[in-house]
C-alpha cells in the first residue's frame, strides 16, 4: 500500500466520475453505493497505509511516494509525489474517517433532494482534492488540492443555485479565497527564487540550515499566512465562511468546519521551520488568530440562525488554532484541528438533524423544548457543546488548554503571548456562553414554532444518528490524545511525542519545542475551567427560564451594541463601501466609457466598409443587359488602355 498512496485520493475521484457521469440516470441507490464505497475504501486503504508506515518507519521519517515528474523547466521543477509522515497521517485519518461519517449522514439528510447525484459527485470530488492537499509532498502539489477544495466549496455552497443568496455566497467564497491564493502563489514564487524548490523536505532543510535571510523568511511566511487566512477564514478574509452556510448542512460540517477550513492551519504547521525563523510572522499569526477568536465569538453571541452561530464559532475556533501556531505550539494547533473536527462536525450534523426535524427551520427563536422530541440529537449535541465549551476531560478542554497554556509561556514573543492568552481566554468565555445560550434556546423551554412544525417533529433516521453518536463519543475521548504532562518522568502526551519528528532543529535557534511547566499548566487549566463554568452559569441564568426575553431586554437596554453584534460589526457593509463599491464604479466606468471608445473605434472601421459596400450594391441591378453593357464597357476600356 505504501507504494500506491495515489489510490487514496484516486478512489473518491473515481466515485466523482461515476456519480457525475451516470448518477442522474442510474438512480439514488447507485450513487449511494458508489459514494459510500469509494470513500469507505479510501479510508480503509489510508488506515492500512498508516499501519504499514508505522511498522516500516518507527522513527517517523517521512515516506515520499513519487508517482512521476510533473514538470522540469530550467532550474525549477516539481514532482507528482505523495508524502506520508506524522502530520499528514493525522490529517489523513481525520479527513477520510470524518469524511466517511459525513457521507453516511448525507445519505439520510439529502434523501429527498433533487440533485442527489450532483451532491455526492461534488462531495467525492471534494474528498479527492482534500486528500491531495494533505498528502501532497510539495507546496505546488498541495496547491492543486487547495484549489480543488476551493472549487468544491464553491460548487457546494451554491448547491441550491436557484436561491440567489446561495449563488452569491458561493461567489463570495470563491472571490475571497482568490485573495488568499494570491498570497500563496507569491510565496511559492519566492521559494522558487530563494530556495529553488517548493518541496517540503527541501524547504524545511533550507530553513533549518539557516541559509535563508530573515527578511525573506518573513515575507514568505506572511504571504503563506495570507493564503491561510483566506482558506481558514481569519480576519480580514473571514467574511465568506458565515455566508457559506447557504450550502447543505453536511457540507457545512465537512468542508466549512471539519476539514477544508483547517487546511490553512495544516499549511502553517507544515511550514513550521519557516515560521520559526521569523518572530514577526509568528507574532502576526498569533495576534490575527487571537483577534479573530474573540471577534467571531462576540458575534456568535447575538446570532439567531443555528448555523450562523456555529459558523462564527468555527471562525473563532480556527482563531484558536492560529494562536497555537503563532506561539509555536504547532502540536497543540493540530491537536485542536482534530478535536474541533470531532465536536464541530458533531454540532453541525446535530444542527442538521434539528433543522431536519423542524422541517427546514433554522431560526433558533422558533425552536425550544426539543430535548424530549429528538433525544439522540439532544444528547450528542450536548456532549459536543460541553466539549467545545472546554469542560474538563472533554476533547475541547485538552486542546484549547494546550493552546492557551503554550500562549502564556511561549518563548516566541513572550509579551505577545501573554496578550494573546488574555484575548483567547476572553474568547473562551464567550464560546462557552454562546454555545450554552443556543443549547438552552433550542432544546429547553417551550416550543415556539408553528403547529405544523410541532406536528412533524421526529428523530432522524439511523444513517444520520449513527455518525452523530460516533462523533459525540470521539468528542469525549478525543482529548485523551494529548493529556498534558503534569508529572515528572513518563510522558503521557501521545500527540506531542507523535509530532516530535516534524520539528527539525534549526541552527542558531531553539528546537521550537518547549515545555510548559506543570504548575503553570495546572493554573491555566483551572482558569480555563472556571471560565467555561462562568459561561455556562451565565447562560443558564439568562436563558434557562427566561428564554428569549433576555435577548429582547438586551436589545432594549443597549440597542446600539445589540444591533452592532447582530449585524456582525457591519463588516460586510464596510467592505461593500470600501472595496466592492469603488470596484463596481470603476467597472461601470470601464464598461460605459472606455469600452464605448474602444468599441466605437472598431465600429467605425466596420461602418466604413459597410458604407462602401452599400455604394457598390447599386451595380447589382439584376438586369442581364446592364451586366452585358458593363462587360462591354470593361472590354472597351481594357482595349484602350492596354492595346
Amino acid at each position, binding site marked *: 500500500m505504501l507504494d500506491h498512496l495515489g489510490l487514496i485520493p484516486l478512489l473518491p475521484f473515481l466515485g466523482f466520475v461515476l456519480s457525475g457521469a451516470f448518477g442522474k440516470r442510474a438512480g439514488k441507490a447507485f450513487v449511494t453505493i458508489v459514494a459510500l464505497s469509494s470513500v469507505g475504501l479510501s479510508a480503509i486503504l489510508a488506515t492500512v497505509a498508516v499501519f504499514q508506515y508505522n511498522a516500516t518507519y518507527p522513527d517517523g521519517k517521512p515516506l515520499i511516494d513519487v508517482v512521476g515528474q510533473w514538470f522540469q523547466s530550467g532550474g525549477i521543477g516539481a514532482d507528482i509525489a505523495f508524502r506520508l509522515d506524522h502530520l499528514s497521517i493525522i490529517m489523513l485519518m481525520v479527513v477520510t474517517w470524518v469524511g466517511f461519517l459525513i457521507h453516511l449522514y448525507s445519505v439520510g439528510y439529502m434523501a429527498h433532494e433533487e440533485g442527489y447525484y450532483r451532491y455526492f459527485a461534488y462531495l467525492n470530488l471534494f474528498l479527492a482534492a482534500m486528500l491531495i492537499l494533505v498528502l501532497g509532498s510539495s507546496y505546488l502539489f498541495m496547491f492543486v488540492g487547495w484549489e480543488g477544495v476551493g472549487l468544491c466549496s464553491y460548487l457546494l455552497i451554491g448547491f441550491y443555485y436557484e436561491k440567489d443568496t446561495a449563488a452569491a455566497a458561493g461567489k463570495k467564497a470563491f472571490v475571497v479565497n482568490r485573495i488568499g491564493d494570491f498570497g500563496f502563489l507569491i510565496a511559492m514564487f519566492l521559494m522558487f527564487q530563494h530556495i529553488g524548490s517548493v518541496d517540503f523536505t527541501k524547504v524545511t532543510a533550507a530553513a533549518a540550515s539557516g541559509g535563508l535571510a530573515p527578511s525573506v523568511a518573513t515575507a514568505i511566511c506572511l504571504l503563506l499566512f495570507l493564503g491561510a487566512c483566506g482558506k481558514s477564514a481569519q480576519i480580514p478574509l473571514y467574511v465568506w465562511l458565515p455566508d457559506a452556510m447557504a450550502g447543505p448542512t453536511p457540507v457545512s460540517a465537512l468542508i466549512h468546519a471539519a476539514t477544508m477550513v483547517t487546511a490553512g492551519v495544516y499549511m502553517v504547521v507544515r511550514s513550521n521551520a519557516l515560521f520559526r525563523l521569523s518572530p514577526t510572522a509568528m507574532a502576526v499569526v498569533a495576534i490575527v488568530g487571537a483577534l479573530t477568536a474573540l471577534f467571531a465569538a462576540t458575534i456568535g453571541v447575538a446570532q439567531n440562525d443555528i448555523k450562523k452561530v456555529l459558523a462564527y464559532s468555527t471562525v473563532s475556533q480556527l482563531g484558536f488554532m492560529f494562536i497555537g501556531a503563532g506561539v509555536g505550539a504547532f502540536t497543540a494547533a493540530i491537536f485542536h484541528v482534530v478535536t474541533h473536527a470531532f465536536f464541530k462536525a458533531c454540532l453541525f450534523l446535530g444542527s442538521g438533524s434539528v433543522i431536519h426535524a423542524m422541517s427546514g427551520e433554522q431560526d433558533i427563536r422558533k425552536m425550544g423544548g426539543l430535548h424530549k422530541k429528538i433525544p439522540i440529537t439532544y444528547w450528542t449535541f450536548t456532549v459536543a457543546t460541553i466539549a467545545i465549551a472546554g469542560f474538563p476531560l472533554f476533547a475541547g478542554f485538552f486542546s484549547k488548554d494546550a493552546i492557551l497554556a503554550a500562549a502564556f509561556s511561549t518563548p516566541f514573543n513572550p509579551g505577545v503571548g501573554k496578550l494573546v492568552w488574555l484575548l483567547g481566554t476572553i474568547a473562551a468565555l464567550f464560546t462557552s456562553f454562546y454555545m450554552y445560550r443556543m443549547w438552552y434556546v433550542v432544546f429547553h423551554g417551550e416550543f415556539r414554532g408553528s403547529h405544523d412544525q410541532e406536528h412533524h417533529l421526529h428523530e432522524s433516521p439511523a444513517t444520520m444518528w449513527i455518525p452523530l453518536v460516533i462523533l459525540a463519543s470521539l468528542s469525549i475521548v478525543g482529548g485523551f490524545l494529548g493529556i498534558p504532562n503534569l508529572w515528572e518522568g513518563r510522558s503521557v502526551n501521545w500527540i506531542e511525542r507523535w509530532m516530535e519528528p516534524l520539528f527539525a532543529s534549526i541552527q542558531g535557534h531553539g528546537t521550537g519545542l518547549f515545555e510548559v511547566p506543570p504548575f503553570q499548566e495546572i493554573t491555566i487549566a483551572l482558569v480555563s475551567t472556571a471560565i467555561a463554568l462562568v459561561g455556562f452559569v451565565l447562560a443558564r441564568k439568562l436563558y434557562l427560564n427566561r428564554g428569549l426575553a433576555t435577548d429582547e431586554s438586551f436589545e432594549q437596554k443597549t440597542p446600539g451594541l445589540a444591533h452592532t453584534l447582530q449585524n456582525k460589526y457591519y463588516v460586510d457593509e464596510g467592505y461593500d463601501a470600501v472595496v466592492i463599491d469603488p470596484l463596481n464604479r470603476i467597472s461601470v466606468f470601464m464598461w460605459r466609457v472606455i469600452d464605448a471608445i474602444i468599441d466605437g473605434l472598431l465600429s467605425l472601421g466596420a461602418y466604413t466598409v459597410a458604407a462602401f459596400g452599400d455604394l457598390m*450594391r*447599386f451595380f*447589382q*441591378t*439584376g*438586369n*442581364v*443587359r446592364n451586366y*452585358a*453593357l458593363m462587360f*462591354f464597357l470593361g472590354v472597351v476600356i481594357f482595349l484602350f488602355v492596354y492595346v
Partner: protein
Amino acid sequence: MIPTNYFLILSAILFSIGVLGVLTRKNGITIFMSIELMVNAVNLTFIAYARQYHSLHGLIFVFFVMAIAAAEAAVGLAIFIRLFHHRETIDVDEANLMHW
C-alpha cells in the same frame, strides 16, 4: 483575290451588330441569336487569316468554336425553357431576382 481587309471589315460590322443586339434586345432568343452573330464574326476572322497565311490552325479553331457554340446553345435554350415555365415569358428584364 479579295483582300483580307474586306473580310475583317465585314467581320467587325457583324460583331458590332451582335453587340448592339445583345445590349438593346429584351427577348432572350434574340439576344441569343445576337451572340451567335458575334461568334460567327470571330469565325470569319479566323478563316480570313487562315486563307492569308495558308495555315490550318485557324480552320481547326473554327471547328472548336462551332462545337462550343452548339453546346452553349443547348444549355442556353434549356435555361430559357425553364425560365418560360416559371415566368410565362422570356423577357430578360423580368428575370431580375438578384436585384439589390
